[in-house]
């Protein structure tokens, strides 16, 4: 520790820290623009100049390391004179367009110029002008003349995002921030550049000119789009969500948000929102009142339970529904006498059910991942499935952690990968077995060698591993590897409440059917909560067939979706911003939130809908006043920490025979859930491009087609026409065809055989 003095205040700080860090620790503000605690030091704005005793001239606080006995003056005559001088220079070329600037009211330059600027300018010459840029549908770079060249956006891209898409071209007076050859910024974290920009140069395109910051109410919420549990500040006006910003928490999302979390809100005001209950009569959809719709549902369910039996009713719920919704749905089903309830819609292997000691979770805290020195990522489209976790692992890799990958695609993780094994899905278990064996024998190179040499090993199973037809075996192998390396292993949960679903038993407990079985052996009635079966299930073809064959389909959804084809009743429910609820993140963090706005139209929170359904069906114990009461009941006597356990035993190892081409299906980043799929700006990004059939070039030449040609991709009875493209990172014998997209929704299972032929 080092003793210094800032503005007469004695401060103890760590050696190696900078003056600005020490000052912030002590609660002393130093004006700055280019400095950001999460980014490297650039020291190019010069706003943080301070006076240091014995130094002949002012020094930049952000780039001056502390020294024993140092005396710093942040507001002395010399310091303030320097700061005011810098401010005058910054304002020389900055347009005076605050009244029409989107940043107005929340602008660092505006705020700082009140403190350090002059009321009038001594500069009367022509100001420099920088042309606007189009860098994509999310970030607006329309007014680059406002840029003060702090390079925060450039550093963010290169350091946190992992790809340098923006840079500072030219020099001196001509320096400007731009992308290479007018390219778009495609990073899945690009929205953070908007937050970082201290002026109005980079602003949010979807939010442009929608509101002033002081008109907005701020509501605390939790992201529903991945399992990290990122804190959201939902900004609303006139009962509408107008934008979403991060809530800082170093243990979760730090000060970042993925673009999916940030811009998904546009889906909340989609034209497809369902605002009135509807019943299908004689093939026509009629708008009805809630009473009629709920009685219709209750009668239908009662009839089927009384006739064919309650086990003919199946309930499916998405993993991003709230804890309360999942709890009430399973309570309702069990109250009717059916054990058929599941939220693991894209899972295909359920053989670990009953063999696990608890609820599968991350196996460590999110912060622990930063401390791991060896990380093995198994079966994960990490960057697209969990953008911020990828950023965290990227930062760990930068600080020396060795990252290894076992997967079926070789997508660029934008970080240093020490070892990787890329094999077809059918060979994934073999690849893991090899590693497990090598790790056990301690004589190893490659992935095993890397893991054995580590002190803090983390093995993470991604979405692909969880959806894999041999998921239980992968889990058992991950456990072996973790045990042999004294490390930890866990699942990066697929959705916001993947852990919560287990905690409240939204899974079959006795002889009920799991999600896959419910669709494989069709039920007479289905209750769908937030589910779009053709986009959310492991086998879209089978899901649709089951829905079409059913006598009664009750779709509770915030949207009018594909269910209009086969459902009998549509109940408008509130998305997560319009209801109170709870998500349990991958690391087991229980986070409750309130509704940010009132439900749209006649939509109602699903927990209320389920409560009334419970009452109508005369199921006991459905008299909740608030969602908190539901949560309290669901969590009663539940020790979350004790319940989280990935340990599994008694898994049978079988080799699965696979013939022909195997399908590798990712769920594209902007196709993961109903809200995201309707967020227009996200849908305009490169990541939301139409799915293609990706093949290794040798497979392509076997087919005798050129990249860019149309091919017929078939599974089961149906086929899709897709453009074919080359990806030599794929193993041979596989074709990558995304799921969760309307263009591929007629295809079958996300894993397994698939045929590709010339169209």
């Amino acid at each position, binding site marked *: 520790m080092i003793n210094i003095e800032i503005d007469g205040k004695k401060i103890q700080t760590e050696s190696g820290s900078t003056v600005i860090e020490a000052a912030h620790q002590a609660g002393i503000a130093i004006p700055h623009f280019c400095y950001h605690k999460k980014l490297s030091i650039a020291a190019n704005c010069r706003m943080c100049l301070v006076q240091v005793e014995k130094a002949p001239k002012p020094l930049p606080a952000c780039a001056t390391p502390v020294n024993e006995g140092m005396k710093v003056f942040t507001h002395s005559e010399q310091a303030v004179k320097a700061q005011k001088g810098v401010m005058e220079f910054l304002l020389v070329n900055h347009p005076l367009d605050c009244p029409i600037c989107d940043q107005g009211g929340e602008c660092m330059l505006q705020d700082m110029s009140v403190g350090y600027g002059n009321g009038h300018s001594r500069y009367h010459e022509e100001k420099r002008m920088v042309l606007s840029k189009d860098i994509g549908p999310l970030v607006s770079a329309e007014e680059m003349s406002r840029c003060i060249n702090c390079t925060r956006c450039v550093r963010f891209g*290169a350091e946190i995002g992992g790809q*340098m*898409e923006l840079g500072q*071209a*030219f020099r001196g007076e001509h320096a400007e921030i731009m992308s*290479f050859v007018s390219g778009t910024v495609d990073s899945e974290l690009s929205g953070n550049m908007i937050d970082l920009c201290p002026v109005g140069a980079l602003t949010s395109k979807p939010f442009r000119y929608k509101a002033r910051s002081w008109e907005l109410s701020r509501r605390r919420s939790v992201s529903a789009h991945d399992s990290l549990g990122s804190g959201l500040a939902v900004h609303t006006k006139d009962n509408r969500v107008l934008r979403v910003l991060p809530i800082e928490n170093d243990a979760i999302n730090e000060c970042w948000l993925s673009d999916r979390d940030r811009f998904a809100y546009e889906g909340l005001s989609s034209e497809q929102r369902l605002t009135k209950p509807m019943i299908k009569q004689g093939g026509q959809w009629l708008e009805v009142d809630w009473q009629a719709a709920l009685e219709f549902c209750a009668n239908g369910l009662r009839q089927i339970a009384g006739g064919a039996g309650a086990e003919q009713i199946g309930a499916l719920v998405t993993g991003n529904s709230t804890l309360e919704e999942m709890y009430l749905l399973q309570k309702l089903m069990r109250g009717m006498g059916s054990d058929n309830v599941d939220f693991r819609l894209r899972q295909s292997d359920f053989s670990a059910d009953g063999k696990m000691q608890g609820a599968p979770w991350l196996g460590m805290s999110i912060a622990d991942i930063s401390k791991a020195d060896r990380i093995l990522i198994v079966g994960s489209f990490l960057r697209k499935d969990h953008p911020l976790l990828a950023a965290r692992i990227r930062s760990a890799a930068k600080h020396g952690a060795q990252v290894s990958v076992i997967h079926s695609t070789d997508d660029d993780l934008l970080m240093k990968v020490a070892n990787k094994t890329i094999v077809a899905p059918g060979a994934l278990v073999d690849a893991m077995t090899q590693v497990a064996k090598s790790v056990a024998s301690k004589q190893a190179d490659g992935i095993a060698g890397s893991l054995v040499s580590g002190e803090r090993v983390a093995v993470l199973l991604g979405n692909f591993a969880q959806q894999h037809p041999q998921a239980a075996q992968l889990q058992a192998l991950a456990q072996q590897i973790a045990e042999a390396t004294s490390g930890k292993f866990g699942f990066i949960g697929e959705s916001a409440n993947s852990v919560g679903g287990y905690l409240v038993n939204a899974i079959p407990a006795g002889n009920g059917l799991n999600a896959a079985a419910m669709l494989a052996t069709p039920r007479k009635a289905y209750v769908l909560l937030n589910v779009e079966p053709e986009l959310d299930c492991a086998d879209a073809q089978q899901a649709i067939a089951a829905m079409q064959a059913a006598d009664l389909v009750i779709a509770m959804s915030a949207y009018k979706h594909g269910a209009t084809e086969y459902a009998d009743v549509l109940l408008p429910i509130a998305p997560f911003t319009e209801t109170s609820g709870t998500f349990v993140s991958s690391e087991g963090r229980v986070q409750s939130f309130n509704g940010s706005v009132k439900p749209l139209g006649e939509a109602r929170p699903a927990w209320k809908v389920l409560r009334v359904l419970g009452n109508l069906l005369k199921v006991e114990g459905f008299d909740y006043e608030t969602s908190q009461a539901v949560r309290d009941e669901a969590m009663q006597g539940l020790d979350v920490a004790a319940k989280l356990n990935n340990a599994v035993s008694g898994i049978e190892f079988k080799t699965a025979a696979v013939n022909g081409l195997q399908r590798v299906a990712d769920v594209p980043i902007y196709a993961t859930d109903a809200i995201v799929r309707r967020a227009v700006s996200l849908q305009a990004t490169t990541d939301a491009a139409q799915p293609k059939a990706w093949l290794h070039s040798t497979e392509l030449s076997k087919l005798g087609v050129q990249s860019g040609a149309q091919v017929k991709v078939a599974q089961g009875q149906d086929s899709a026409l897709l453009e074919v493209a080359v990806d030599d990172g794929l193993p041979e014998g596989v074709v990558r065809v995304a799921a969760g997209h309307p263009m591929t929704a007629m295809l079958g299972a996300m894993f397994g055989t698939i045929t590709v032929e010339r169209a």
Partner: protein
Amino acid sequence: MLSQQITTLIDKELNKYPADQRQSAVMAALRFVQDEKGWIAPEDMADVAVYLGMPQMAVYEVATFYHMYNLKPMGKHTLTVCTNLSCTLCGAGDTVGYLEKKLGIKLNEVTADGKFGLREGECMGACIDAPLLNVNNKKMCGKLTPEKIDSILADLEGGKA
């Protein structure tokens, strides 16, 4: 695609730096491209980026930062006239004026036959010979007078670079 000659030269340059610091060779690589092609097209920058394993934008930053890289075709012979203080005091303005008149082009333009391009440059560190011009960043010509400029142009026309 970078030509065989260019990659050979870059490889030679790379020997000067540690194996994991390939981007150290970016300035040399851009110079080789310009020597061969007369200018550096964005596609060439992208190729250099791939070859050196660095972001395209980082190559672009370097290429736009330094004045001596041509970002557009500048003719077979690029004449760069220093217009910094010393040269200007010694008549660089007249030099530029004379060249513009003689070649029939303005600064940053190329003659119709593609032989000459005219550029403004920064201090070349030889103020004792002011005013100065530089041919293709390779050959410095000082103490310029109209007669001397005529003879330089005539030499270049005649193939004596």
